[in-house]
């Protein structure tokens, strides 16, 4: 526990020094508020750009807040996983390469404390950014459109946080087991590619971690099928725990790959 705390402090300082704690929330908030504002002024923008035939109704004017929020979260979905993977894929593997790990491993630290400190550091940054971005998005949608149920927003943020946690864990585990390039590719495959597969042939099953994004959006209009939803949550949590175990095993196994 003591080791974990000290290593987490190191991790925190690292995130502060390379400004991750600043730019990731800013980017998420920007992407969160841009979409509602753009939808709100779409008509004006279209008029200003011109070249629209007479009497065209794009159906944008009569959007409800739920529609706007759903499309915002859909956009968010692409950006979040991309930035999380790209900024955290080297967290463990780069330390092996640039000799920081050699400095750490000569001391008697436990591998689980090391891996878990990395995971918690990355999770704090990623979750903080996601929640801030979604809250900003809700705020703008409520100002520009109509009110929304607070509990629905909370459910959406909660479900979405679990998905972000899953992405972070996948990235860090890949980083613990493989080198940076392989880790990034693998994390992409496991999030984007699997999501694609899930959306193409996913109607045959209803329970999978990759459906969490869809379930999160469903919270806005109605409750998702409760048994499917909770089963997905349970499956995701189990997957995260498994990935943590694999990650700790990977950091231990890769001791011989450390550059001195």
């Amino acid at each position, binding site marked *: 526990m003591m080791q974990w705390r000290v290593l987490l402090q190191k991790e925190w300082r690292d995130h502060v020094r390379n*400004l991750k704690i600043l*730019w990731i929330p800013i*980017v998420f908030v*920007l992407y969160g508020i841009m979409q509602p*504002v753009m939808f*709100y002024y779409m008509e*004006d923008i279209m008029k200003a750009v011109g070249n629209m035939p007479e009497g065209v109704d794009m159906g944008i004017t009569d959007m409800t807040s739920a529609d706007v929020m759903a499309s915002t979260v859909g956009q968010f979905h692409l950006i979040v996983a991309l*930035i999380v993977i790209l900024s955290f894929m080297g967290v463990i593997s*780069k330390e092996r390469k*640039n000799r920081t790990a050699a400095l750490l491993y000569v001391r008697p630290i436990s591998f689980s404390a090391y891996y878990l400190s990395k995971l918690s550091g990355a999770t704090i940054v990623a979750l903080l950014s996601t929640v801030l971005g979604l809250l900003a998005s809700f705020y703008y949608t409520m100002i520009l459109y109509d009110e929304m149920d607070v509990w629905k927003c909370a459910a959406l943020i909660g479900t979405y946080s679990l998905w972000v946690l899953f992405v972070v864990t996948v990235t860090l585990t890949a980083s613990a087991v493989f080198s940076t390039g392989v880790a990034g590719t693998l994390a992409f495959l496991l999030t984007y590619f699997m999501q694609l597969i899930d959306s193409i042939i996913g109607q045959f099953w209803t329970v999978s971690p990759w459906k969490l994004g869809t379930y999160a959006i469903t919270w806005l209009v109605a409750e998702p099928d409760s048994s499917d939803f909770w089963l997905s949550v349970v499956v995701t949590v189990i997957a995260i725990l498994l990935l943590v175990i694999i990650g700790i095993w990977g950091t231990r196994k890769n001791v011989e790959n450390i550059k001195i």
Partner: protein
Amino acid sequence: MSSLLMMLLPIIIIQFILMIVALIDLVKIPQTNGPKWLWAIVIVCGNIIGSIIYFIFGRKQV
């Protein structure tokens, strides 16, 4: 028109903060991947995307 400006102002300000942070970091960092002046152009011209690309690929992690 003024309400439009009030709505867009936060976005512009946040975008500006992001750009300033990236530029300050670029000045302070000893070395980047590739020439520094190129990154300055990318950050100023590339809006949000430029700053993101700088933070992810431009910073040389020692």
